[in-house]
């Protein structure tokens, strides 16, 4: 049934802009986030972190900390059972339970500054902090491996003795920091380059950036006398968090209840768990509720980030503007454990183009930095920074307009990507058309040292499993629950779809996110999937309600089921014109004992293309780049809530501006992070960015009832290369590294 699109002249809720259901609680300070949870007898948990980037743990002595008055328990890795060396898909990333265990509490080695070594619970945060200093850890310091290219050399110290490169031609036979080598080949790249009239080649580098959700990681654990472990967690996926804790504690899922709190931002970074399991261990040991909340420094040192990268890329084209071949090498930092987003980075790099011949080699590289986590279109902003600058440079060399050159090479439905998949409808031409016609692209710049750049991007999105249940109340209102954590409004957008199918006012639907005991399995809120996939589950649940109500009506009127029709909130039968009953009256008659279930596994979803037009002004004396104007274009398929789509686009673009100009980890040669606070790790403020104009295109994805596509991730992909292209126009100098700080720019133009 879900295969069929819902065709109506006018949707009842879908496409409108109702107030978000959680808005009033959030503007008044009443919404409860992970950091706000308080329970009677609560103890405060803190984590001891490694001061070294790479060291063997010789011994840990916790006795002095345990003896401090007010300290209730200390835990280390030995308090956890051994974990399976097994890797599973988790959102857009993967989780290996052995590595997850070591990342929660280091066992034999610490692999980055900030790596968790021990955790303790005390009656106050101050006592907990003081007690951390009493834990004595003896380290044998090892050489830190911080540079991705250096890490790949076979002469470099390895992080993990047991890791061999998993490569396209099988497994390597010596220990390596290259955990994986992937290769996509299409056509004949050598021939493609020999057919080219113009070839450009460059190397680009980027440093790790943090998702920088304003709410840090927080979990509160409490054990019941019946053995139930309850965890309040600021997580993207309650079921994903439960699975991780269950694996690490080797404890049955049925006895672990994860209650997702309001989440103060995540952007991919709250898929892995860090504090949930230590909190559970401490709560079990003390018999009291334990809350572990990270400080900002801990968030920066111990969680996320997005990969730093080194990317070389070469592209050839004919002088008429047809790309003949591409070749790229993508080296992505995984951090301390395997699992960088080099796969999606390689997927996205030239996905917007029809490339006849190409080869992409991707490397997942271990370095002594925190294990990376997904960050909004994981891997794509880095590869787009390289790819969309090379495309721009090639267009310049050929003497073509950037839009025209991209249009001449744009992918369309059926295009085979370099990774071998076939594109569904992707609307790249339409996006380029909007750019070409937009006033922003056509109005002249109005000052010296200004430049305008464009870039486009594509993200594949995700589908996966979602569950929704709808209970009809006797007054005709309905309650909807879903297993999806609401990160930025999905409670509202999912309810809108249910209201639309039920043909009742949106105000009559109350939607909530619930704990893992209350609904069946739902995948994590990631991959731009929630409004689309959980929305589909809501559509299914609403249809289930209507089917059941139609059965009740056919019984009640003794008419055939086929004759019962439902429209605009009223049931009728084609057998007798006189009979009719409203949704609310029927609900009253049935005392509200009607529910509907929607359990979907979305295996057919569509990616979304987007683009950015940006104007910058560069101060040649200070190297400062000011973003003057920015327009974002994106294909939403169908904007379920256009206001939310605009919000995703504007927010994603501003994160992209931060990545382009300000953000990045700075390390010393020993692997210490020099900017682990929000003063030195600079996020964009309201003063740094203009109001981003969001242009929504609606090219429906036919397999979704509303034509909806995911929208959350695509907006972050193209801002950095668009800004770099604009800076190039302003300065005549191409910037090949992120972030494009004043220092970087002044070095490039030879001022310093």
């Amino acid at each position, binding site marked *: 049934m879900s295969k069929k699109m819902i065709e109506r002249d006018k949707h009842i809720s879908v496409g409108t802009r109702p107030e978000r259901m959680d808005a009033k609680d959030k*503007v008044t*300070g009443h919404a409860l986030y992970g950091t706000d949870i308080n329970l009677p007898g609560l103890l405060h948990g803190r984590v001891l972190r490694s001061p070294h980037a790479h060291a063997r743990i010789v011994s840990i002595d916790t006795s002095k900390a345990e003896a401090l008055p007010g300290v209730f328990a200390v835990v280390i890795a030995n308090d956890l059972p051994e974990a399976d060396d097994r890797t599973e898909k988790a959102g857009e990333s993967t989780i290996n339970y052995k590595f997850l265990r070591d990342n929660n509490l280091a066992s034999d080695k610490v692999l980055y500054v900030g790596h968790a070594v021990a955790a303790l619970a005390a009656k106050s945060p101050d006592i907990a902090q003081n007690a951390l200093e009493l834990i004595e850890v003896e380290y044998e310091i090892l050489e830190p491996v911080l540079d991705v290219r250096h890490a790949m050399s076979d002469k470099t110290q390895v992080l993990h003795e047991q890791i061999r490169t998993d490569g396209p031609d099988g497994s390597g036979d010596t220990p390596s920091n290259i955990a994986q080598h992937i290769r996509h080949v299409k056509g004949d790249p050598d021939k493609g380059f020999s057919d080219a009239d113009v070839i450009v080649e460059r190397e680009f580098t980027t440093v790790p950036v943090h998702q920088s959700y304003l*709410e840090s990681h927080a979990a509160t654990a409490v054990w019941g006398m019946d053995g139930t472990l309850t965890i309040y967690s600021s997580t993207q996926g309650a079921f994903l968090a439960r699975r991780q804790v269950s694996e690490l504690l080797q404890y049955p899922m049925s006895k672990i209840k994860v209650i997702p709190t309001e989440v103060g931002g995540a952007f991919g970074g709250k898929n892995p768990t860090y504090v949930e399991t230590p909190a559970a261990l401490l709560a079990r040991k003390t018999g009291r509720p334990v809350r572990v909340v990270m400080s900002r420094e801990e968030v920066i040192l111990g969680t996320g980030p997005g990969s730093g990268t080194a990317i070389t890329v070469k592209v050839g084209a004919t002088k008429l503007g047809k790309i003949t071949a591409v070749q790229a090498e993508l080296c992505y930092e995984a951090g301390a454990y395997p699992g960088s987003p080099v796969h999606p980075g390689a997927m996205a790099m030239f996905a917007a183009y029809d490339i006849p011949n190409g080869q992409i080699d991707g490397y997942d590289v271990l370095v002594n930095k925190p294990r990376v986590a997904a960050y909004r279109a994981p891997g794509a902003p880095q590869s787009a920074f390289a790819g969309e600058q090379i495309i721009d440079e090639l267009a310049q060399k050929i003497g073509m307009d950037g839009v025209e050159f991209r249009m001449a090479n744009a992918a369309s439905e059926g295009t085979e990507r370099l990774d071998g998949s076939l594109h569904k409808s992707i609307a790249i031409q339409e996006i380029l058309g909007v750019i070409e016609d937009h006033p922003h692209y056509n109005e002249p710049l109005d000052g010296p040292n200004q430049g305008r750049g464009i870039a486009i991007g594509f993200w594949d999105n995700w589908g996966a499993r979602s569950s929704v249940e709808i209970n009809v109340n006797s007054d005709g209102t309905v309650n909807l629950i879903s297993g999806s954590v609401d990160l930025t*409004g999905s409670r509202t957008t999912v309810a809108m779809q249910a209201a639309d199918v039920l043909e009742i006012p949106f105000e009559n639907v109350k939607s909530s996110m619930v704990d893992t005991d209350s609904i069946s399995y739902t995948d994590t809120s990631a991959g731009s999937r929630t409004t689309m996939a959980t929305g589909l589950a809501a559509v299914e649940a609403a249809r289930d309600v209507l089917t059941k109500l139609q059965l009740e009506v056919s019984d009640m009127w003794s008419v055939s089921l086929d004759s019962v029709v439902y429209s605009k909130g009223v049931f009728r039968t084609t057998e007798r014109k006189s009979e009719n009953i409203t949704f609310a009256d029927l609900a009253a008659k049935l005392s509200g004992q009607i529910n509907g279930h929607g359990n979907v596994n979305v295996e057919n979803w569509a990616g979304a293309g987007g683009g950015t037009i940006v104007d910058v002004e560069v101060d040649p004396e200070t190297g400062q780049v000011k973003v003057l104007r920015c327009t974002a274009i994106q294909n939403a398929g169908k904007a379920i809530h256009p206001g939310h789509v605009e919000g995703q686009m504007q927010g994603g673009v501003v994160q992209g501006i931060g990545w382009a100009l300000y953000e990045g980890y700075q390390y010393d040669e020993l692997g210490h992070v020099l900017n682990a606070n929000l003063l030195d790790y600079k996020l964009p403020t309201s003063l740094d960015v203009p109001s981003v104009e969001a242009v929504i295109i609606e090219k429906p994805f036919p397999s979704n009832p509303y034509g909806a596509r995911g929208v959350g991730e695509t907006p972050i992909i193209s801002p950095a290369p668009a800004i770099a292209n604009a800076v190039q126009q302003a300065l005549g100098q191409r910037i090949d590294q992120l972030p494009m700080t004043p220092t970087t720019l002044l070095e490039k133009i030879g001022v310093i």
Partner: protein
Amino acid sequence: MSNKRVVSSTINGQQVEFLTEPQQSLLECLRDTLGLTGSKEGCNDGNCGACSVLINNRLVNACLMLGIEIEGKDVVTVEGLADVHELHPVQEAFVLEDGLQCGYCTPGFIVATKALLDKNANPTEDEIRFWLAGNLCRCTGYDKIVRSVRLASQLMNDAKEGLQ
């Protein structure tokens, strides 16, 4: 541990006495001692503005003040803005203009906006962006926040006109 002090102050219009250790920040006192968790901790070093509160009508980051410093002072947190049944116009504007996503920074923005509009009833976009530069938002890209502040300004001016 017995060096706790009693602090008397007015918080959200109520006379309050509470115990604090001298090193505890105002933010800790509000959140942990007084149960006012609307003020959020984002950085604990004055860079994100999520803990913005008003002390004697002046906008401050609660993480940068000590609890003992509010002795005798008048404190307004995000919880003190709405009546029981009615949102403050600033809150109403953020709801209507959708000036929030995850909502974690929102209490700080609401309080900072109130402080701005109390000083300047008709701020320009530049003035809004300048004033709010001490508050970080990672979700919205600020456009809908700026629109919310403009609407709040309009709602508050309308209310004043209605009174006259």
